[in-house]
């Protein structure tokens, strides 16, 4: 263990052979790719030397990656990044049948820290078990156990059933629901029945391995390089979260990202009616105030976090349902505003059912919105939808469709593949309002207002459309870096100047990190992902945004008339490539760019 703050090893589990081993991580990789998303992508790159591997084949690797901040009580640094080859994405002009992008999706909670307490810098699962299994890890003792009796269980029930099985409430776990088991491509991985590595089909890959859950508990401790510096930084950053009248802290505690429902709608940046509008007239019915008043009972925090943005409660009205986390901005928009649903209890029901199945709410909300638009336009009829009268704002119809998608029943067996697939199925120019990039559905932030930021953010995301990507290289690098440290983006404003990520990483590792080197590491990680995608056959034509944004104008609200200018977007994209040092014709990072970022190994 040469670099402090790491164990220097990954727990490698092959579910086909049952082989369990520790794999050393090259020191050089730790320095270059840090952890989480970055190190996960590098391991994936090494595990899949050839492009075109079927993401649902045993060969694909599924990585659960904490970061160097995980397991240390650095506030708001509990993220676990799930990295794999995506079952969601495909190129406009495919080179390989199964050519797809890298997928990374991170979740908060307690799982990542516990991986590190057990003595690992990550878990890599390959192969496919013969029957449903779960993995139990207690420090060095790793077991692959039968999960047949849990197969088919919703995450809500399973969350408790697993604890009963383990007989110890101090195990932390993550798992899939029936959506993942059914190989719904947009299935996700969850922990604590709500916190999800929601995007990019992570749960589908887990399901393809017959892996229901991973449970972990650990008693180990790391060593950091400069213990005293680290303790000083910790006490300093804890103080910064304690300042009285800390408005940012109050904002998070008051409503979490749900606070953005009202502001985004006002600003015309919300996905409304399958992205046709940016403002939702009924937004106050599903926003923070309504939830504070009617639904939420408690605020919940991830490991060592002071923000407590997760809200739990009970919804009553058209539906009665336990709410583990909802709505936040994404779920409230994608199953609310985007479908013109303003019935709060109905929205809560949709969110709770989605979480129980374990499905990406962004993608499924987007897909139902697409079907609603196609239905309204008469491209598809009620018979095509198995008799569902899928009208805007209809909770019962949306719920019915959601069940069908998660169970892959009838129309759901098609719709579960997302909007790119559906547009190919039904044709008739429906691709124009299929709101995806590279096959991955866009999230709850609408594009036309602030299109300079959002169009680049979505178009250049390495996992396919992603709202967390950032609209310019500097933000993208910062996001890639946070995802690699395991730091939460919501708390990034506290990690500046004397409390910077660079200072923490220096104290932990003993390797001197500056803000510039942090930015460069972010750029390196982002560019490695790009090279992964390039190798899989993704080119410039894949870095675009859906035609709707060039053709549709908002019809009401303060930003009535907003639309994206195609030429401005084309120009912005070229400028983005230039700034990144990528070729503006092919989008491939230039050799000198790759050399500068220590990515020589990607040049073939």
């Amino acid at each position, binding site marked *: 263990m040469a670099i402090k703050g790491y164990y220097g090893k990954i727990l490698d589990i092959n579910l086909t052979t049952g082989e369990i081993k520790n794999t050393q991580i090259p020191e050089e990789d730790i320095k270059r790719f840090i952890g989480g998303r970055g190190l996960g992508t590098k391991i994936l790159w090494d595990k899949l030397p050839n492009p075109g591997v079927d993401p649902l084949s045993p060969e694909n690797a599924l990585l659960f990656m904490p970061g160097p901040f995980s397991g240390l*009580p650095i506030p708001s640094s509990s993220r676990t990044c799930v990295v794999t080859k995506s079952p969601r994405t495909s190129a406009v002009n495919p080179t390989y049948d199964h050519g797809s992008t890298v997928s990374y999706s991170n979740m908060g909670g307690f799982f990542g820290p516990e991986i590190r307490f057990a003595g690992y810098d990550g878990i890599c699962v390959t192969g496919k078990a013969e029957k449903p299994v779960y993995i139990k890890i207690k420090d060095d003792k790793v077991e692959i156990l039968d999960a047949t009796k849990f197969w088919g269980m919703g995450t809500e029930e399973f969350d408790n059933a697993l604890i009963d099985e383990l007989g110890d409430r101090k195990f932390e776990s993550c798992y899939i629901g029936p959506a993942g088991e059914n190989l719904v491509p947009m299935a996700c991985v969850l922990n604590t029945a709500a916190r999800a590595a929601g995007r990019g089909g992570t749960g589908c890959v887990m399901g393809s391995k017959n892996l229901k859950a991973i449970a972990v508990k650990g008693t180990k401790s790391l060593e950091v390089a400069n213990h*005293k510096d680290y303790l000083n930084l910790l006490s300093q950053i804890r103080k910064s979260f304690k300042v009285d009248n800390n408005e940012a802290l109050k904002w998070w505690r008051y409503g979490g990202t749900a606070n953005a429902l009202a502001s985004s709608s006002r600003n015309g940046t919300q996905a409304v009616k399958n992205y046709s509008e940016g403002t939702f007239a009924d937004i106050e019915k599903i926003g923070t105030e309504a939830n504070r008043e009617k639904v939420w009972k408690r605020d919940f925090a991830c490991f060592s976090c*002071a923000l407590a943005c997760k809200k739990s409660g009970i919804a009553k009205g058209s539906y009665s349902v336990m709410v583990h986390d909802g709505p936040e901005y994404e779920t409230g928009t994608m199953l609310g505003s985007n479908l013109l649903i303003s019935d709060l209890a109905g929205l809560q029901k949709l969110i709770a059912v989605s979480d129980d199945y374990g499905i990406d709410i962004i993608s499924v909300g987007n897909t139902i919105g697409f079907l609603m638009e196609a239905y309204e336009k008469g491209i598809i009829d009620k018979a095509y939808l198995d008799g569902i009268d899928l009208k805007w704002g209809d909770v019962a119809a949306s719920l019915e469709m959601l069940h069908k998608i998660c169970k892959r029943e009838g129309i759901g067996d098609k719709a579960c593949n997302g909007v790119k697939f559906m547009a190919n199925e039904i044709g008739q120019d429906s691709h124009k309002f299929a709101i995806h990039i590279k096959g991955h559905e866009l999230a709850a932030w609408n594009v036309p207002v602030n299109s300079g930021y959002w169009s680049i953010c979505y178009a250049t995301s390495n996992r396919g459309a992603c709202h967390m990507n950032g609209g310019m290289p500097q933000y993208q690098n910062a996001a890639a870096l946070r995802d690699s440290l395991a730091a939460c983006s919501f708390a990034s404003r506290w990690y500046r100047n004397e409390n910077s990520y660079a200072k923490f990483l220096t104290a932990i590792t003993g390797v001197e990190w500056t803000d510039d080197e942090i930015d460069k590491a972010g750029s390196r990680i982002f560019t490695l992902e790009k090279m992964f995608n390039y190798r899989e056959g993704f080119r410039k034509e894949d870095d675009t945004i859906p035609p709707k944004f060039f053709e549709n104008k908002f019809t009401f609200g303060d930003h009535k008339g907003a639309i994206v200018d195609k030429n401005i977007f084309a120009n912005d994209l070229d400028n983005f490539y230039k700034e990144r040092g990528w070729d503006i014709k092919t989008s491939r990072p230039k050799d000198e760019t790759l050399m500068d970022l220590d990515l020589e190994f990607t040049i073939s």
Partner: protein
Amino acid sequence: MNKTKYSRRHFLQDIALGGGGLIVLGTFGFRIFKDKDRNLIKAISVDFTKCAGCRTCETACSAYNHPVLINGEKMNGLGNPYYSNIKVYHFNPDVDVPVTCAICPDPPCINACPVAPDMNTGRKALYREANMIIKNDTERCIGCKQCAKACENMRGGVIYPNPETNRPERICTLCDDNPSCVKNCPFGALDFIEMPIDRQLANLAPAKIAERLIEQLYNLNV
């Protein structure tokens, strides 16, 4: 009582009175216990309405009580929560229940300790310090786990026998009368306050507390 009128305040009052002792729910709960005519001790109180389950207390406790020596200097450790004396148990539906040694007036752990009292000090292996905290004399402890069983059966179940020696661990030290958990709680859910030593202690098991919190918070029929 009319169900819809059964407020959170009523609930807190009920549980505070019934649960007693360390389990102080809401600020007024403290007042229920404060009684100038009775003997007071300083102990850690938990406000379940404020705990967000972040487990910062666990890391702070573990860091303070498991220090490391670096170049001859004693410093806080890195705080793996496994070694913490305070434990936060998470339940679904979502409630978090922090549990730590209640410094019971009638400690079932000490009562259960079978080691004969020392002729001079009168102490069993498990004994009470001047500030009321409970300690274990590792020289005399026989590792019979009776203390852990007693705590588990009668109180919060906070004592963990060491997996190798079977000797009791995880008993609150009050961190030299300045509890790290209280100092570091970001939500003000923990407090270090005076409370009467002869308070009633029952129903301290995390599962029981969780059951009552869940019933109050998430009862669909209320």
